[in-house]
C-alpha cells in the first residue's frame, strides 16, 4: 500500500521549506475523510452526467460522470492528453469560443443544466471563476486587474471599489507584496505573483466555484507553496476544482480526486482512498508512476 507521506519526494518539500499542511483540518467542522454516506449527504455544487465532448469529429470525453461537492477541493489527475482541461472547460462553457468544439450531456450547476440552450453565459461565468495554466494578467495595472470583474458586475463607489480590491488581494495572499505597486502593470509582477493576481481577480468577482487548470505548473516551488497554502484557505468559502499533474499536490490539497484516462473517468473517490487503496489497476499504475 502506498502511504501518502511516502509519495512525497524529499527534494520537493525541502525546496518549499514548509511542513506538509494537515489535510482538511483547516476547514473547521468538516471531517477529514468523508465516509461514503457523508459523501452522499454533501450537497453537490456541480454534477456532471454523461458528458461527451468533441473537437470537430474527434471525441475527447466519453460519458463523464462526476460530482463536485460544495466546499471541497476536487482534484482531477491523469496522464497528459487524457481530457482534464477539456473536461474543466465545459464547466464555464469557455470551449464555445471555438467553432468546432461541442459538449453533449448534462452539467447541473446548483441544479440547473448549464449545457442547456438559453443559459446566461455571462452570469454563469461570473459565478464560476477560472485560473489557467499560464498566468494571464490583463494588460492593465494591478488595481485594474482586480477591479475588472468588480466594475463589470457590480455598481460600486470609488471607495467601495478600492476596499474590495484590497480585500481580494488579501484573500489572494498578495496584498503585502503589491500594496505599493497597485498602479504598476500586472505583467510586471513575477510569475507566481501574476498567478495569485489572477486568483485574486477571480475571487474579487465572488464566484461560487473556482476552476484551476494546472495553476502551478508554470511557477517555481516557493510560489507553488504559496498558492497551495492559499487553496487551503479558500476552500472554506469556495468550491474548487483543481487539475494537476503533480500527485503530491493533489494529495496535499484535495479532498476528492478523479482519475482520468483517455477521456474517461476511471476512478473517483476520496483523495485518501484514491492514493492509498485505488480500486482500478490503471489508477494504481498511474499514481505509483508506472505510466503517465
Amino acid at each position: 500500500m502506498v502511504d501518502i507521506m511516502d509519495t512525497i519526494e524529499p527534494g520537493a518539500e525541502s525546496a518549499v521549506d514548509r511542513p506538509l499542511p494537515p489535510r482538511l483540518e483547516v476547514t473547521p467542522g468538516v471531517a477529514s475523510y468523508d465516509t461514503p454516506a457523508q459523501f452522499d449527504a454533501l450537497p453537490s455544487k456541480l454534477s456532471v452526467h454523461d458528458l461527451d465532448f468533441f473537437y470537430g469529429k474527434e471525441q475527447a470525453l466519453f460519458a463523464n460522470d462526476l460530482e463536485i461537492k460544495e466546499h471541497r477541493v476536487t482534484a482531477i489527475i491523469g496522464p497528459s492528453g487524457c481530457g482534464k482541461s477539456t473536461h474543466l472547460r465545459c464547466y464555464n462553457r469557455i470551449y464555445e469560443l471555438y467553432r468546432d468544439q461541442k459538449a453533449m450531456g448534462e452539467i447541473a450547476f446548483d441544479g440547473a443544466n448549464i449545457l442547456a440552450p438559453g443559459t446566461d453565459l455571462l452570469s454563469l461565468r461570473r459565478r464560476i471563476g477560472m485560473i489557467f495554466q499560464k498566468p494571464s494578467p490583463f494588460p492593465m495595472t494591478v488595481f485594474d486587474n482586480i477591479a475588472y470583474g468588480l466594475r463589470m458586475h457590480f455598481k460600486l463607489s470609488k471607495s467601495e471599489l478600492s476596499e474590495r480590491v484590497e480585500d481580494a488581494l488579501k484573500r489572494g495572499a498578495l496584498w503585502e507584496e503589491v500594496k505599493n505597486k497597485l498602479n504598476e502593470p500586472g505583467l510586471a509582477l513575477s510569475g507566481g505573483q501574476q498567478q495569485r493576481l489572477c486568483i485574486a481577480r477571480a475571487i474579487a468577482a465572488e464566484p461560487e466555484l473556482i476552476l484551476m487548470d494546472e495553476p502551478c505548473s508554470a511557477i517555481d516551488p516557493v510560489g507553488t507553496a504559496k498558492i497551495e497554502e492559499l487553496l487551503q484557505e479558500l476552500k472554506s468559502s469556495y468550491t474548487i476544482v483543481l487539475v494537476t499533474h503533480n500527485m503530491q499536490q493533489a494529495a496535499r490539497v484535495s479532498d476528492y480526486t478523479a482519475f482520468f484516462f483517455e477521456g474517461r473517468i476511471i476512478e473517483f473517490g476520496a483523495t485518501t482512498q484514491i492514493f492509498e487503496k485505488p480500486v482500478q489497476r490503471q489508477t494504481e499504475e498511474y499514481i505509483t508512476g508506472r505510466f503517465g
Partner: protein
Amino acid sequence: MSSGEVDISTPGGAGAQTRPRRHHFAFGDPLFRWFTIACAATVALAMFLLIGVLVKNSWLAIHVLGIKPLTHVAYNPDTNQYGALSSLFGTFLTTILAMLIAVPLALAIALLLVELVHPLVSRVVGTTIEMLAAVPSIIFGMWGIFIVVPLMQRHIEPWIQATPLGRLGIFGGSPVGVDVFTASIVLSLMILPFITAVSRDVLQMVPKVVKEAGYGMGSTTYEVMRKISMRYALAGIAGAVFLGLGRALGETMAVSMVIGANFFTIPHSLFQSGTTVSATLALNFPESQSKLETSSLIELALILFVITMVFQVVAQLWLARARRMTGSRA
C-alpha cells in the same frame, strides 16, 4: 509497493536549469554585434545628413525671408510671396481628416476579422486588404480623378449640402469635386489597408489565454475586444497608426491629383480646392525660376520635416508611457 517508484516532478516542475550555451558563437557574436551597430549608425547618420542638406539648401531662403513663410498664406514667386501656411494647412487638414476616417474604420475591420467573422471570410478579406496596401499611389490618384471626383461633385457633395449639415460653412460653396474633402477621402482609403493589415496582425497575436481569461470573467465579446485585446495590442496598433500618419503627411501623387493643387489659400470650406506641402513641392520644384524660389521650397520641406519629427518624438514618448502602463510588450 515502494515509495521510490513515484516519479513526479517537484511542485512547479522546476528541474535543473540548463546552462546557457554562450560559448558556441564566441566569434560570431561580436561580429554580428558590430554589424548591427554599424547598420544602426548608418540610419542615424543618414538622418543627420538629410537635415544638414535641407538646412544648407534652404539657408538662402531662411536668410532672406526669415520667418515670413510661417506667417504668410499666399505663395507666388512672381510677386515675391513665399507663404507656407496654405500648404501646411492643407497637409495637416487632409491628414487629420484622413486619419479620423481611416483609424476607426481600420480598427473596426481588424477587430471584425480577428474576433467575429468566419475564419475563411477573415482570410479572404485579409488577403485582399494586404493586396490593397501594396497598390501604388498613382493608381489611387487615377481612381480618385476618374471615379471619386465626379462622384463627389455630382452626388455626394450636393447631397451633403442638402442635409442640415449643408448650412455649416465648412460644407459651403459650389461643389467642384477636386477639393480638400475628396483629397481626404482618397487619402484615408490609401492608408486604410495598411493600418488595417498591421492592426489585424497585432490583434491576432493577443494570447488566447488572456482572451479566454477575459471571457472567463463574464465579459462580452465587445468588452474583451475593447478592454483586453485592444490594450494588449495598443503599442502595435499605435505603431501602425503612426506609420499611416507618416504616409498621409507625405503622400504626394494621389493628393496632388484630386486636391486641385496650386490653390494657395486657406480654404473656408472642405469643398474648396487647396494644396499640400508635397503637392506644392512636386508641382513647383521642377519649374523653379530662381535660386530663392528653390530655396524657399526646400525650406517648406524642412518645416514639414521638423514638425513631423517633433510629432513623432511626442508620440513615441506617449507610447512608451502607455506601454509601461499596460505592461504590454506587443
